[in-house]
């Protein structure tokens, strides 16, 4: 057992864990943050995507101890109280989910994509950059639509802030 310390959604946490504990299990079982889902457990589906120091990663393929001292953001950490994050709001408005299982990973991937992509997003870029997240219900169309709409709203608010 080793004590692991990191920041999760802004709050410092410290827990004694088995060294082999995966970050996804640490978040779900030690911290009770069950919004991070485990779909395939083989680094394919992206349901477990969280941000580690501002980068999107698959938390089923990272040990909790590899995140020692890092800053983690999970799906629980992006909204403000009952107010949805703009990407969550866009998923709601575009009906970008059906069963919802992949949604936390989709949203976390999309937030990171919108925050970090240098050029304006196009449908082609979104489809390419989101290929690490699998959805078995929607056919992706509305997910892409939601991400483009959230990205556009963000660009508009940036432009108006500049005026």
């Amino acid at each position, binding site marked *: 057992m*080793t004590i692991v310390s990191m920041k999760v959604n802004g709050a410092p946490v410290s827990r004694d864990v088995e*060294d*082999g504990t995966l970050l996804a299990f640490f978040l779900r079982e030690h911290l009770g943050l069950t919004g991070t889902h485990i779909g395939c457990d083989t*680094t394919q589906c992206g349901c477990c995507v969280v941000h580690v120091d501002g980068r999107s990663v*698959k938390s089923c393929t990272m*040990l909790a*101890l590899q995140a020692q001292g890092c800053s983690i953001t999970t799906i629980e950490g992006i909204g403000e109280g009952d107010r949805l994050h703009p990407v969550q709001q866009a998923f709601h408005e575009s009906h970008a989910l059906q069963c919802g299982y992949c949604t936390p990973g989709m949203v976390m*991937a999309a937030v990171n994509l919108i925050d970090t992509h240098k050029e304006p997003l196009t449908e082609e870029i979104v489809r390419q950059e989101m290929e*690490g*997240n699998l959805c078995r219900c929607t056919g992706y169309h509305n997910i892409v639509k939601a991400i483009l709409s959230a990205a556009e709203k963000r660009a508009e608010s940036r432009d108006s802030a500049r005026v």
Partner: protein
Amino acid sequence: MHHLRFRQPGDIAEALKLWAEDNEAAYVSGGHTLLPTMKQGLAQPPVLIDLTRIPDLRHITAEHGRISIGAATLHADVAASDTVQRQIPALAGLAGSIGDRHVRNRGTVGGSLANDDPAADYPAAVLGLGATVVTDRREIAADDFFKGLYETALEPGEIVTRVVFPVPEIAAYAKFRHPASRYSIAGVFIARTGKHVRVAVTGAGARGVFRPKNIESALSADFRADALAGITVDPATLLEDLSATAEYRAHLIMVMARRAMTNLGTTQTYK
């Protein structure tokens, strides 16, 4: 997951010392091959030595017509590097084509090379560019580094510290990916410096990454896609599995070689 101890050394000397204490220990970097292998029970190292917190192992530096990339540098950072994009766009494109963006945020060049998966992308760039793999104890030329499937010239306990890529006049990479795993079924890297053309094929060789000499000679004589007409690769030297027969791979290699010739000097890798 089996019971294990996790160690995070701050420098190479400490990493080597930890390995000397337990020769069954495994080094881990991004862990995107090792952790899934451990979950399946196919590897059960009693100790994991994480190399990603060693500062010297994470850098991208241009030096005298060469680019040095630290072994623990992320695929995402190689793909986004201005230096790499400007000097070897094909290498930036290759790094940006690996797995998906979340995988590229964890995977490292050193991990990819030490693992030497026959379908990995980096071996194609390292062999195609004639790079040098630098370890804690020596320098290994690309032509001597890759030994077979998941097999390299690395000694037990040896650590890749950086890779030095010579900057070619022009280079390109084209690959045909498995749609689910995103690994190459056939990937071809082409680099020209002066009259010298190097070609490396990944994803297809029965013994891992290799240099098809007939493609190299044809392109050395005439550096145009048309020069590849009539050239074939012997399927007997190629991999065969559920995703592709050896004959199909032989065909794909030539298609990718022609495609690479249209991607020269760009970051374009597939489509």
